[in-house]
């Protein structure tokens, strides 16, 4: 006999929630703006194009900074730097973290215990503090050093999450069934482990992306990030600090840019999880 298959639970259309669409729009806007700066900006970001600390106007949409440079142009450049740092740091964290996490999940109990303890110690350091230590130990502040430092610091969190998720998957009967089916360990990672853990990982990557953007802004604020003339949002905030009461828009504009990108990334990540997980799709 043939059992009736319930049709209500069939996977059909993807659920694109309003939150996901808002997140995608915010992230997309920053990506477009960041890429656009490779070809065009309203003004030369290093040129004095107006009066000092001018209010927003048609000529200068976000006003000018204390040297008379166009703030909107600098915020556009800042978007490019934020995206570069986020992408680079998350890529480093993903490669190092996922590799170590999978090794720990598959390792013997002793090796797993050592790796888990090492990760716990690394995680005990705040990401920013660890990044500052790495920057301080390197040749000096640069965009590349900031990316490396933030990526390495975030990799411990990614590794621990990967280890937990992978061990949970490895305990399932379908892994035993895969072994009985003749699938090797690399095949099990590729076919079963990674597809089952990546929806959670990608949410974490997006979170780490946002944290990397904040960490880079913090490093730049402290003078340990992208050096001038790179118009990092953190450096813009630091420069606006002195004039925050007389020209608050110099701090508000890069702050809004930073917050909108991080919120957009978080909303986008939640939506991605729904898309990636067939068990969350409903008609």
């Amino acid at each position, binding site marked *: 006999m043939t059992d009736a298959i*319930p049709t209500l*639970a069939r996977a059909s259309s993807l659920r694109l929630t309003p939150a996901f669409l808002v997140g995608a729009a915010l992230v997309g806007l920053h990506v477009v703006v960041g890429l656009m700066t490779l070809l065009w900006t309203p003004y030369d970001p290093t040129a004095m194009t107006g009066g000092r600390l001018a209010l927003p106007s048609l000529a200068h949409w976000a006003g000018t900074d204390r040297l008379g440079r166009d703030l909107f142009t600098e915020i556009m450049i800042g978007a490019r730097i934020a995206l570069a740092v986020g992408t680079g740091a998350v890529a480093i964290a993903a490669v190092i973290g996922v590799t170590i996490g999978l090794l720990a999940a598959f390792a013997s109990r002793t090796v797993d215990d050592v790796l888990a303890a090492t990760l716990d110690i690394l995680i005990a350091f705040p990401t920013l503090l660890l990044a500052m230590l790495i920057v301080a130990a390197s040749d000096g502040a640069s965009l590349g050093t900031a990316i490396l430092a933030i990526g390495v610091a975030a990799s411990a969190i990614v590794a621990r999450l990967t280890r937990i998720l992978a061990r949970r998957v490895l305990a399932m009967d379908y892994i035993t069934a895969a072994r009985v*089916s*003749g699938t090797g360990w690399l095949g099990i990672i590729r076919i079963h482990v990674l*597809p089952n853990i990546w929806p959670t990982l990608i949410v974490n990557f997006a979170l780490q992306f946002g944290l990397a953007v904040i960490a880079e802004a913090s490093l730049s604020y402290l003078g340990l990030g992208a050096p001038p003339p790179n118009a990092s949002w953190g450096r813009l905030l630091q420069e606006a600090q002195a004039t925050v009461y007389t020209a608050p828009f110099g701090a508000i504009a890069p702050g809004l840019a930073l917050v909108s990108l991080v919120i957009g990334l978080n909303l986008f990540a939640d939506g991605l999880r729904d898309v990636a997980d067939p068990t969350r799709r409903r008609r």
Partner: protein
Amino acid sequence: MSLIDLTAVSFSYGRGRRVLDGIDLRIEAGRNLGIVGESGSGKTTILRLLLGLALPTTGRIAFNGAPLDPGNRSFMRDFRRAVQAVFQDPYSSLDPRQKIADIIAEPLRSLNVETDISAAVAGALASVDLPPDAAQRYPHEFSGGQRQRIAIARAIVSRPELLLADEVVSALDLTTRIRIVELLKTLSEKMTLVLVSHDIGFVALLCHDLIILEKGRVVEQGPAGSILSSPQHPYTQRLLASTPRLPDFA
């Protein structure tokens, strides 16, 4: 010739106590075997040994007369193709991220079986009474009984000689149990079954021989009919007395 032989097999986890002790067991083609015992009796460990997922601490396991050799890839490919399994929990035995077609085709791909994979998947689905369009769906779209059928389809797609079933009906309701028993009975015409269960009534419906395990030791073994009609060991008598029976399909 026997398919699998266990000779004086013992097994311990690490330095702990012996989970299995001095097991002698022969699985012959065409004679279904039931391995019965309560929780902790060593049933699942025997299953892992029979599947080559663990090696005995002492003793010998042979497949078609040759010692089981996990390091020999060619040997293990033949072994995996010939010996497949269905597990207890239909909800954790299917990868939720994979479509049914990929789940069922996994043994064919992993064992490099040269065949038309789509046709083999459709054939396996038909064997377990599921429609062809099930192949393009995900496990969460199916009931527990349907999932167990899919797990059976995966196990039989490589046309094994031996199908090991670990408590395959214990997580199912009574109606679905009866359907799965009917399906296993049909499959037993093409392959040998080894049923591992705490439910002596269930395995007795399908098995020619029974082995009764208590605390890692075989306390009674022989033809199912004689064990059911005149159990010798007090543990077997207790098991029989405490197990509700399904309707007789024999």
